[in-house]
């Protein structure tokens, strides 16, 4: 068995790959700690995986960490050192937090699982991203991997050629501090959203922006890919993320774009400043899409490959995938369901496996979208009193539940779902979701604003079967796999009415999810057809600011804290009464 772990910088997680190269368990630390974006050493996840799979230290052949810790520590310091004395605060902060950096990984593993530290191995950060994407591709040879993130352990963007899984050559990279990921995060910060949390809000907001507006042009001009020099050009005088531990942008950016948004002011379309901030978001989105297209063109030029893997935090920018897939040389674009750091434990575990197996002709199966083993059954007896006081059990069997859920959905109700295993990525794909009729405007509005308290400018994702998707949306063959994990947006088809669905964004796109490998939803969609419901609106089961629910008790807590009434669980459908 082979373990992979991530942590210390972004969301931490652990993954387990068996001796045949199959991903058999995965867990994000935030699922268990209930702290959104938990980046501490993933001790709970590791323990859970070891307990769930009855492992002991001897059965684990190696454990791989997703970056080279000393590199990750030294490279930002080295950059800051060339900006002394301006960077003193940053340097002092980094040095004082030495003991909280990933250098501590060895001793944390030793403390938690004595003996396992001797089996600890390391890989380059961008390689961990590449190996996270590779298992999701049916092709394993002659591929090009593009990794774009904020910062790894030495670079921020890279292009690699995969001859076979045991031969992955890096052929181009972009060094810190020039970073498309950190540029986008800086604009996120400027717009008042939390860095590493609010980037998807910027993406949603950008659809309201005007491409030709002065602010959009100014924002997009802050960064570009120079096709002659083959490098990312960024005017660092507008940025401070490499010099300051507390603020990511400089006064020059404020002079250029005006006052940053107050994070506490609601961002509503009717507000006078809304257009200003939407234009800035638009500029960031334009720059991102343009640069990604340039990088992919260069990657094709370097490798001659038409099949691409795309990973790193920037690959979460689902709106840009459509543009990349439109490039005439792209035959296939594979983005893993969790392309950011949280998913990198999967790539790390595969690295450990590949180093041991030493077989270049790998045929490992494509991992499940739901590898995170559930513990819902363990909680049934524990919740007896909560259920007896607050809940009414409406159904027992799965068939009965499907019938009742369909009926409720067709009547405009929103249903919370906590069933089976949990998803890998940040997008809820149905097992930890809030769902309702995707064509019912009132239901979607309740789901989005009343239950989730989301910003009104962010649409909810539509979820459907493939045949329905083909009717309403312009699907791109290159991105089919990404639609299964809600990873890419697509355009609505003309004259189908889909432009007016409440799940369609202002720019006529939707971040669709097409059903794959989920027995429960296959049956549910079949039953929903009898009620004339073919599209569900799907959002993660959580409250704003919390991680997605992981277990039965988390689901009950969501019901207790907001107006959600119905919760479908492995133990039947329940109605939560707020006494």
């Amino acid at each position: 068995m082979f373990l992979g772990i991530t942590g210390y910088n972004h969301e931490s997680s652990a993954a387990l790959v068996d001796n045949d190269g199959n991903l058999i368990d995965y867990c994000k630390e935030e699922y268990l700690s209930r702290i959104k974006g938990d980046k501490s050493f993933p001790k709970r996840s590791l323990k859970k995986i070891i307990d769930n799979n009855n492992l002991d230290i001897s059965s684990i052949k190696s454990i791989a960490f997703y970056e080279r810790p000393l590199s990750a520590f030294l490279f930002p310091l080295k950059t800051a050192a060339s900006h002394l004395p301006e960077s003193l605060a940053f340097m002092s902060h980094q040095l004082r937090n030495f003991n909280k950096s990933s250098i501590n990984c060895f001793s944390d593993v030793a403390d938690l699982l004595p003996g396992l530290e001797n089996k600890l191995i390391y890989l380059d950060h961008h390689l961990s991203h590449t190996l996270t994407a590779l298992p999701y591709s049916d092709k394993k040879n002659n591929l090009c991997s593009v990794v774009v993130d904020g910062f790894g352990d030495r670079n921020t963007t890279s292009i690699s050629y995969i001859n076979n899984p045991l031969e992955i050559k890096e052929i181009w990279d972009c060094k810190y501090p020039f970073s498309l990921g950190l540029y986008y995060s800086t604009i996120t910060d400027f717009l008042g959203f939390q860095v590493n949390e609010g980037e998807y809000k910027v993406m949603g907001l950008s659809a309201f922006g005007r491409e030709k507006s002065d602010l959009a042009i100014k924002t997009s001009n802050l960064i570009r890919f120079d096709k002659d020099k083959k490098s990312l050009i960024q005017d660092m005088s507008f940025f401070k993320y490499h010099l300051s531990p507390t603020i990511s942008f400089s006064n020059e950016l404020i002079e250029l774009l005006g006052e940053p948004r107050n994070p506490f002011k609601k961002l509503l379309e009717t507000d006078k400043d809304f257009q200003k901030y939407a234009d800035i978001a638009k500029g960031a989105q334009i720059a991102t899409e343009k640069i990604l297209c340039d990088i992919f063109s260069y990657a094709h030029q370097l490798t001659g490959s038409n099949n691409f893997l795309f990973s790193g935090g920037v690959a979460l920018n689902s709106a840009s995938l459509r543009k990349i897939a439109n490039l005439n040389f792209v035959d296939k674009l594979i983005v893993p369901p969790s392309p950011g750091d949280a998913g990198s434990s999967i790539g790390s575990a595969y690295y450990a496996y590949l180093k041991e197996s030493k077989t270049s002709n790998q045929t490992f199966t494509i991992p499940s979208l739901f590898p995170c083993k559930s513990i819902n059954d363990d909680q049934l007896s524990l919740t007896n009193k909560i259920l007896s006081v607050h809940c009414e059990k409406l159904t027992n069997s799965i068939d009965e539940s499907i019938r009742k859920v369909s009926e409720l959905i067709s009547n405009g109700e929103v249903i919370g779902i906590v069933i089976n295993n949990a998803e890998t990525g940040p997008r809820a794909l149905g097992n930890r979701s809030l769902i309702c009729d995707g064509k019912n405007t009132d239901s979607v509005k309740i789901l989005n604003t009343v239950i989730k308290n989301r910003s009104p400018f962010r649409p909810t994702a539509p979820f459907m079967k493939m045949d329905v998707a083909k009717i309403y949306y312009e699907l791109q063959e290159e991105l089919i796999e990404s639609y299964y994990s809600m990873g890419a947006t697509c355009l609505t088809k003309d004259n189908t009415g889909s432009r007016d669905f409440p799940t369609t964004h202002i720019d006529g796109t939707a971040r669709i999810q097409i059903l794959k490998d989920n027995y429960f939803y296959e049956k549910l969609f079949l039953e929903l057809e009898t009620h004339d419901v073919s599209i569900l609106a799907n959002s993660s089961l959580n409250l704003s600011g919390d991680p997605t629910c992981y277990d039965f008790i988390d689901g009950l807590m969501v019901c207790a804290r907001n107006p959600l009434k119905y919760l479908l669980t492995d133990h039947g459908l329940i109605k939560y009464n707020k006494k």
Partner: protein
Amino acid sequence: MSKKQKHKNNDQNYLNVMLETAFAEVGSALEMLAACKRSEKSTFAFGYFQHAKDEYNHADTFLSILGDYAKDLPSNISRDFRYSSSALMKKGYVSNDGFLIETMKLKDFIAYVYTNELLAKNSFEKILKLVKKDTKAGLKISQIMKDELRHHGMAEEHFLKYYPKLQPWQLMFYRLRETLMNKGRKFYDKNLRFLDKVLTPLYYSLAFCAGKILQLIDLNEFDRKGKDLMNIKIKSIL
């Protein structure tokens, strides 16, 4: 100190109190949720579940008071008071070692809840003075104080029911111990901030020296361009 500066300090103090209290409430909610999931009996789980729900609601209240106040301030002040749950551990509201239910004996845990609910109620009295009792925020905080007293009473009842051999005076001892420890923590925190200010020039000097050394180090030899990433030493941390 100018009037403007004084005003700014007052704003920052207000926002800081609300934010830190929200952090404390979320921390407390997480502790209760963890206790709920690790309970031995469903009745215990129910009690912890209700308690967690209350604490989450309290946190929402403090965040809404914070938001109402901060939305009218300049963004360069308000942006520093954004809530992010990832700071819970950094600020010490949840221990890196694990939840209290994982690291404490059950008896000590219940006594801890009993004591801390009372301490929380006392600290809310100070917050109430800050926001004024008859304001909208003041009314919300008064309600929270009632909740905290209820939690305190429930913990006491629970403690005496399941540990009948222990006497109320022993609970008093727990309370005294936790009160002293709380004061100690505050004293330590205050001194740490003071020491931090005093030692900053030293930290900066050391950082400057480290920077000068780093300028001499060439990391280019660790460049990966053209290298097979699968063939780099598996034990190398650089």
